[in-house]
């Protein structure tokens, strides 16, 4: 039984969590269209951390956190723009080593809870009263106004990014959610700079397809074939992410024809506030990286 398991595991595509740095978006996305590589949507599902390019120092703590969240045994592979075949070979070799050694890399961050909680409070869990204190290291969310239906329920605030797989690499959003509707959003750090090759229509289309749950179709598109998927246009609601008279549907239609969909300037937070999380992610995927980077940097420049 164990032998079968090992043989099977050896044939598995490498489960890789990608931390993409400046200038590496296009290359990394094309890398994952290969059969022998699988881009894990969460570090919990990966055993290799692929660091593509030079991660700026502001993001190094986030990188360390993502690294630690990969379950052991784990390993890091650096990619500085070598040939894709070589990097895949390195990943495979690292995986093989991991199976043999079965320890992998140590944690990078110290084991310190966000708040001291052990032994504090009447029950020793750090809490106080009903809602107070920091039970198990964190306070509880508190109520606040809602922008849609006026039910004042809890607001959950978090900083998401820079390596969130559904966001463009480098983009860190400070989001306040109520349920899964975005009540407030601000840009913590703009996406990493990417050269124009990240705007290629096939890459843009593939990003949208992956969000729509069509990984295979995305791989086909990156391989130069037709997506072969049903209801792609229909699944996107009309009017979603409308900027200067073109909405997401129009942009996806242009990409399907192999045309670029250039965009004028727009206000990114305004586009996202009030949207459901799924809509917001679709809107973000429907913006070509260059336009998105410009929009995200606009408030910084001003």
């Amino acid at each position: 039984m164990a032998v079968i398991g090992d043989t099977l595991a050896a044939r598995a595509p490498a489960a890789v969590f990608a931390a993409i740095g400046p200038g590496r978006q296009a290359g990394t996305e094309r890398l994952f269209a290969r059969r022998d590589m699988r881009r894990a949507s969460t570090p919990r599902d990966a055993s290799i951390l692929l660091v593509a390019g030079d991660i700026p120092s502001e993001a190094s703590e986030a990188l360390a956190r993502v690294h630690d969240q990969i379950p052991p045994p784990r390993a890091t592979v650096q990619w500085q723009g070598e040939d894709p075949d070589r990097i895949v070979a390195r990943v495979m070799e690292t995986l093989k080593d991991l199976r043999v050694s079965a320890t992998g890399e140590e944690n990078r961050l110290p084991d310190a809870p966000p708040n001291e909680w052990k032994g504090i409070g009447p029950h020793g869990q750090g809490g106080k009263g009903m809602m107070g204190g920091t039970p198990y290291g964190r306070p509880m969310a508190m109520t606040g106004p809602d922008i849609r239906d006026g039910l004042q329920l809890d607001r959950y605030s978090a900083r998401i990014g820079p390596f969130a797989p559904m966001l463009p690499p480098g983009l860190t959003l400070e989001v306040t959610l109520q349920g899964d509707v975005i009540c407030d959003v601000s840009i913590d750090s703009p996406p990493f700079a990417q050269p124009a090759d990240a705007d290629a229509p096939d890459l843009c289309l593939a990003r949208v397809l992956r969000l729509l749950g069509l990984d295979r179709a995305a791989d086909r598109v990156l391989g130069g074939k037709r997506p072969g998927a049903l209801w792609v246009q229909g699944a996107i609601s009309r009017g979603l992410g409308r900027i200067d008279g073109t909405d997401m549907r129009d942009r996806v239609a242009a990409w399907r024809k192999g045309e670029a969909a250039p965009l004028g300037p727009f206000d990114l937070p305004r586009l996202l506030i009030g949207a459901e999380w799924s809509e917001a992610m679709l809107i973000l995927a429907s913006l070509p990286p260059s336009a998105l980077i410009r929009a995200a940097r606009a408030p910084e420049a001003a």
Partner: protein
Amino acid sequence: MTVLLLVLAVCATLLAGVVLAALLDRALPELAGTLSRQRIETEAPDRMNRDLAPAFYLALAAVGLSVVPFAPGLALIDSPVGVVIWGTCEALTIIVVFLHGWSPNAPFPLIGAYRYAAIGLPVMLPSMFVLIAAALPAESLSLVAIVDSQREVWNVLRQPLGLPLFLVVALTLTLRGPMDFADAADIAGGTSAEDSGAGRALWQVARLAMLVSVSAVAATVFLGGPLGPVLPGPVWLWLKTAALMAVLVWLGNRVARTTPSRMLTILWVVLLPLSCADLVISGVVAL
């Protein structure tokens, strides 16, 4: 003796089905890979529910498969209310998926859990309507009787709307493709976003097991189950189940997923009237 044989048949079907489903999904090596990794604790999780959710998902798949007759007149649970038992499995699946997303105490799983509750509940309605429609000509809620009622013509021909609607239900129950609102890509894998190691592998296996189970039920209710010429009953059931599994995997890979809010409207405004129409058609045909 028969009971023992049937227990074995259910186990074997589930096991072989899971392997087949993993092959169709190209997920078999990945499952082994996942098993080799350690399991990571999340912050202050609901440990009991985290551990029980995958187990109950698996149990629901097994119970669902137990009401399916392997040969005409021969099911492990030969209950007069087999259809209701299956419906109960569907209802409990919603709870299990919800608990799976609730237990890790993390935002993306939580969003996935609530999305699934929003979609999974109304999906029950088309499911129950088409199953009741299939029970009309059989004059019984027992799956054994439903198989017997299809000796002349299969339900898929008598009630053409039934099978497509039930496939939507099946996609929802197995967290697949266009109905995979719990484990979607925009929430980093949703309810599974915090799963690692053996816990993750078990959840994926349970999903595949549910695929087997729901395909077997669909094959029984709409494709005559074990009925068929020449070959023995179980073989026909297995063939039909495998075919439906392939169809479901294909659909899951090909059809885009819309936003949950939109799908909710579609469920109530399009699919519910369609399933009502299915009920009316089969009622008129049965009279």
